[in-house]
């Protein structure tokens, strides 16, 4: 008798899934440097979202919930990885250690950036032509530094220098939109939200 409403619920859940999976996958993959792990972590978070019926809540609540779960799971994974790598104490260990630290300090504010992505577009167009080309090829087209160097017929060093310059300039210019000035205002709703489903 519930078949119809169940099918509806599933549909609704699928909509949320299609909308946000890739977004969170990319965040997780960035920190984990491992696509399979990232897939698993994000899948796990969506399963929780379904089991706890949170997919019916507001978009902001859904995103916050997914973020909290994904962040915690990623931290656990990184922690385990760091533990298993510590005896080697080499490159992998250091990279994991830095990732862990940044992720730990990363708050939900990383989610709300509709405004930010517009500002980034603007800032990109304000860069010097070579900076702009290099940055666009790298971040938007996803080319490697070497591919960009070949395409633009410049050295890899020059690509790196342009990327660095672009990042630095944009960071300075966008700092009002990047920094967590809304942090306290942001944390409160998340906090009450967390309490609401205890």
């Amino acid at each position, binding site marked *: 008798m519930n078949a119809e409403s169940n099918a509806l619920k599933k549909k609704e859940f699928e909509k949320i899934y299609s909308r946000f999976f890739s977004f969170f996958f990319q965040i997780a993959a960035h920190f984990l440097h491992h696509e399979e792990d990232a897939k698993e972590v*994000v899948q796990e978070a969506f399963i929780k979202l379904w089991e706890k019926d949170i997919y019916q809540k507001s978009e902001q609540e859904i995103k916050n919930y997914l973020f909290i779960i994904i962040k915690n799971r990623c931290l656990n994974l990184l922690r385990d990885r760091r533990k298993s790598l510590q005896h080697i104490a080499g490159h992998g260990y250091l990279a994991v250690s830095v990732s862990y630290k940044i992720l730990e300090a990363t708050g939900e504010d990383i989610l709300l950036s509709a405004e930010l992505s517009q500002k980034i577009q603007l800032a990109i167009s304000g860069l010097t032509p070579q900076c702009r080309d290099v940055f666009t090829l790298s971040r938007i087209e996803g080319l490697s530094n070497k591919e960009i160097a070949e395409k633009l017929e410049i050295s890899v060093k020059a690509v790196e220098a342009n990327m660095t310059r672009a990042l630095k300039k944009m960071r300075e210019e966008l700092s009002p939109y990047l920094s967590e000035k809304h942090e306290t205002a942001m944390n409160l709703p998340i906090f009450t939200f967390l309490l609401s489903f205890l």
Partner: protein
Amino acid sequence: MNPIEKIILYFFQKNASPEELTALDEWSEKAVNRNLLKDYLKLWLWSGQLKDRSPQLEFNATWEEIMRRRKLAEPRVIWLRMVARYAAVALILLNLGWWGAFSYYDRFSAVAKQEFLIIADQTANSVVTLPDQTRVHLRKGSNIKYSSSFTAESREVFLDGEAYFDVTRDEDHPFVVNMEHAKVKVLGTRFNVSARSDSYQITLVDGSVIFKTNEGKEYHLLPDQMIEMNLKNRDVKIEKVNTELYTAWKDGKIIFRDETLGEITKKLELIYHVEFMYANPELAQRYRFSGTFHPETSIGEVITMLKLSIPMEVTRKEKFPDPDMIYLR
């Protein structure tokens, strides 16, 4: 050494050298720098293609996983037909031939009991309804056993682990929870039993229960009381408790009600990989706190919650691989 912005770029592109990573690690120790690094990260992620791509994992794969787990979460019932009895029947068949066998078989089958073993595996709590409609919440990693004669003669179960019982009232057939060293006898009530290898804890929510050790000592328990038996020295003590603290697990949450900060941090140490240090031990006793939180809440968020009601200063120090140290002042 390259400027820090270049190292950050290398780090994002995953080709920083060990020296550069070390430098970055040290540089980001400072809060100001860490914030800067976070800004860069945000810029990096949002200038990439964070938005609007199809899922890297198909919806159907996740949906199937959800369905698979739903099946798993339903308690598994294993039928343990008594192997020994079958073996006996088989032997008799061999020895006596068919004629004798039939008459013996009849007698044996009347005696033979079926046993039911219900296991909650390590992944989830289970809820079981027994033949008398008694509801049992079985904590993950626990199991409960009963036989086919369950309602006919008496209502006896065998528990290993932890379970919360909501027992259907039946004055003619007392409900008995057997453990290795003691048993709990009730008529109809709600209570929690935790049978661990070093201690038993029975917490009574309402009604009344009798706790009886194998040595024959009996204790009556009243609502809101908990009896605890230390299995090493056989000490038994009864105390008044907030039963929610001992039954909250069945709803998957952790509850603190009017507990001292010291009690809370002790529990948090068990849940999270952290250790608490008090600059002034009096702080641990002075403040009390009530609240609930979901187990997925991070330790940082739990502390934020505590800080809302307790005036204290918190500093966290990473001691990896040892537990992180959290100093309270």
